[in-house]
């Protein structure tokens, strides 16, 4: 751990010059990092919490990085609104990652955008279509594009080191993207997601079923990508250049964003049914969102509809998960979209309710036409989904083919962090909804924290696991999130290129199934997954908390 020594000053001094693109924003913060006392440590703390004096003099052992080093921000184009790009089978899209100027609450930051947009273009296609995407990397880091959740050809999965090389700054790569399943998907880089995704490189893909009755009727549709940004005193908090910082908890921003905006809004008519496509694009945050006082039902998730629609009071999304929600706004007024969670105040040893308002829906008094009240009230059973799943039920109760344990190993963390955490180990919440100790978390980097996927049978960990699967096999995978590690935490585990069912949680069979590519595993929980290993190739299995991935929490399933 680096204190404010000549070494640390040297690192920051080296970065200070080229950071002109952030001159009016980050330089002040950088100066604070170099010169300031404890109070000027640029980590935003939860309300009422102080930075611990024992930690105030410490800095993470990485050089700071922000986009646009050496670039004059005034030369950058401001972001433009997200466009909907409707593509037909055989069409080609040029997707360019660039530096952009992004205005957040009156303050301009240098960030990244696809085609100048945050989120990037919403790609809308018909199910079974195939398109070509020419990716152009015009940012200052190597990059790639991963087409999250799609069961596409392995060579187009966008994972450097496994299916392609990194696309260098100035480089290009052409992807062939096919869409076998209807629903909502998203694209993002698979290089330093903790930086590139957090800085704006993400976009939706909406795949339409040929069945016009696939969903119940709705008056309108909205794609909502939920993310966050970490800012302190109008300064973007720098990232670790050599390795991710915030490696324990992941970077939980203090500014929630909907479609890249801190103040999202929507106007609808009275009685309007809106179909929301929610995607969690945050590095680490799990959400619990709702429109208080507004009826909602959950219709679909990652790769299919549910067997049965359900009325819900709120929507829980872990990083990379998607849920399709229908809501009916049946009376005039203003209705907030909120994220309501129970935070842990470690200093008081208590839970504290936290409600963040993410935006507002204004409902006009004029009636929506057509009026879909009757169809909205009806909770549909999707027989086609159940029929598709039926042939897999024979595997539900069989013993697992493979068992993995999720844990963590740490070295060289500050003594105080180790001591504090050893006390905290008496209880870990199943889901850490916020970062209650960002001062401690910031100091942990991927060089000190190693998140682990361990094969119970062999003891092998992460990329040392050599998991060979025969194409067409149905694999039962049991994953246990060990609560006894140094810092247990929930993990959204994502499998590339296949589809899977969560058939049981903690031994309780799932009553209402849906095809998934990402599964939230709370602390102490065990999930049983059934993987339909039908897509050949080398596919990653990893935690989708960007800093956990950057700290090694990944392995590969080879389908031959």
């Amino acid at each position, binding site marked *: 751990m680096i204190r404010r020594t000549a070494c640390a000053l040297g690192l920051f001094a080296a970065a200070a010059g080229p950071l002109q693109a952030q001159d009016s924003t980050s330089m002040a913060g950088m100066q604070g990092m170099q010169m300031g006392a404890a109070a000027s440590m640029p980590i935003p703390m939860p309300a009422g919490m102080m930075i611990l004096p024992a930690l105030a003099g410490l800095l993470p052992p990485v050089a700071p990085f922000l986009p646009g080093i050496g670039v004059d921000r005034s030369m950058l184009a401001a972001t433009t609104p997200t466009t909907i790009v409707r593509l037909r089978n055989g069409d080609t899209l040029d997707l360019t990652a660039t530096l952009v100027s992004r205005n957040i609450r009156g303050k301009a930051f240098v960030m990244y955008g696809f085609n100048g947009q945050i989120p990037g273009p919403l790609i809308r296609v018909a199910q079974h279509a195939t398109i070509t995407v020419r990716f152009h990397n015009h940012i200052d880091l190597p990059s790639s594009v991963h087409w999250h959740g799609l069961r596409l050809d392995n060579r187009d999965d966008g994972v450097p080191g496994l299916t392609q090389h990194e696309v260098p700054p100035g480089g290009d790569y052409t992807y062939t993207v096919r869409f076998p399943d209807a629903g909502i998907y998203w694209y993002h880089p698979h290089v330093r997601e903790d930086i590139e995704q957090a800085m704006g490189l993400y976009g939706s893909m909406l795949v339409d079923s040929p069945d016009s009755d696939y969903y119940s009727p709705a008056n309108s549709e909205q794609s909502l990508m939920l993310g966050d940004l970490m800012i302190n005193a109008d300064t973007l908090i720098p990232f670790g250049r050599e390795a991710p910082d915030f490696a324990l908890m992941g970077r939980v921003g203090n500014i929630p964003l909907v479609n890249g905006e801190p103040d999202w809004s929507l106007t609808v008519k009275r009685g309007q049914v809106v179909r929301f496509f929610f995607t969690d694009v945050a590095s680490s945050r799990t959400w619990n969102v709702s429109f208080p006082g507004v009826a909602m039902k959950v219709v679909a998730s990652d790769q299919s509809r549910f067997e049965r629609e359900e009325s819900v009071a709120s929507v829980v999304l872990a990083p990379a998960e998607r849920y399709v929600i229908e809501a009916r706004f049946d009376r005039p007024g203003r209705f907030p979209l909120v994220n*309501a969670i129970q935070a842990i105040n470690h*200093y008081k040893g208590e839970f504290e309710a936290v409600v963040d308002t993410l935006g507002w829906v204004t409902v006009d008094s004029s009636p929506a036409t057509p009026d879909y009240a009757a169809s909205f009230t009806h909770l549909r059973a999707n027989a086609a989904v159940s029929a598709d799943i039926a042939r897999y039920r024979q595997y539900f109760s069989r013993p697992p083919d493979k068992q993995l344990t999720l844990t963590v190993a740490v070295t060289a963390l500050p003594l105080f962090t180790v001591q504090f955490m050893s006390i905290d180990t008496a*209880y870990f919440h199943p889901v850490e909804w916020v970062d209650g100790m960002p001062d401690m978390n910031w100091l942990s980097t991927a060089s000190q924290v190693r998140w682990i996927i361990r094969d119970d049978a062999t003891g092998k960990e992460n990329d040392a696991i050599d998991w060979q699967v025969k194409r067409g096999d149905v694999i039962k995978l049991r994953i246990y999130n060990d609560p006894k590690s140094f810092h247990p935490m929930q993990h959204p585990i994502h499998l590339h290129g296949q589809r899977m069912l969560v058939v049981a949680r903690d031994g309780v069979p799932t009553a209402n199934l849906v095809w998934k590519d990402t599964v939230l595993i709370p602390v102490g929980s065990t999930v049983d997954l059934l993987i339909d290993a039908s897509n050949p190739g080398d596919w990653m299995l990893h935690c989708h908390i960007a800093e956990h991935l950057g700290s090694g929490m990944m392995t590969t399933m080879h389908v031959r």
Partner: protein
Amino acid sequence: MIGALAAAVLALASRDPEGPYRIVLLPGARAPGAHGEARLVFAASPFGVAVTADGRHRYNVRISAANLPAPATLGPYHALVAWEVSPDLTEWHRLGTVSGDTATVGETSMNKFLLVITAEATAGSTTHTGPIVLHGTSPSGWLQTFLTHPLFRGISQ
């Protein structure tokens, strides 16, 4: 002193083979031979975890107990009833009846709570009146203030 207490807490936690969702149930004075445990299993939900709209986790409470006394041996009682109780003992919510060795008695969504089983006059009792047979603390009850730790001396005072 506090360090020793923390060590004892950790030692207790480390004996639990299945994570943080277990509640050790200790006997009340009127039923010294009773013992058991409760498991908190996430309630049904279409999402990865079950939570209320304000973010409290929802669990089904599954009780396994042994050597439970017949309620009538404790007085004019005919049933054993499980309650979720706020840590300050001001809120008692009926979960359900306990009969036999294992029962899922209801759903809880309190952040911290005590789990208490009492003998009651009827299975439908909605207020607690009888003697305590078993009691335990939710795993979240282990969440304690850091400010009492020696490391924070000078900060918290």
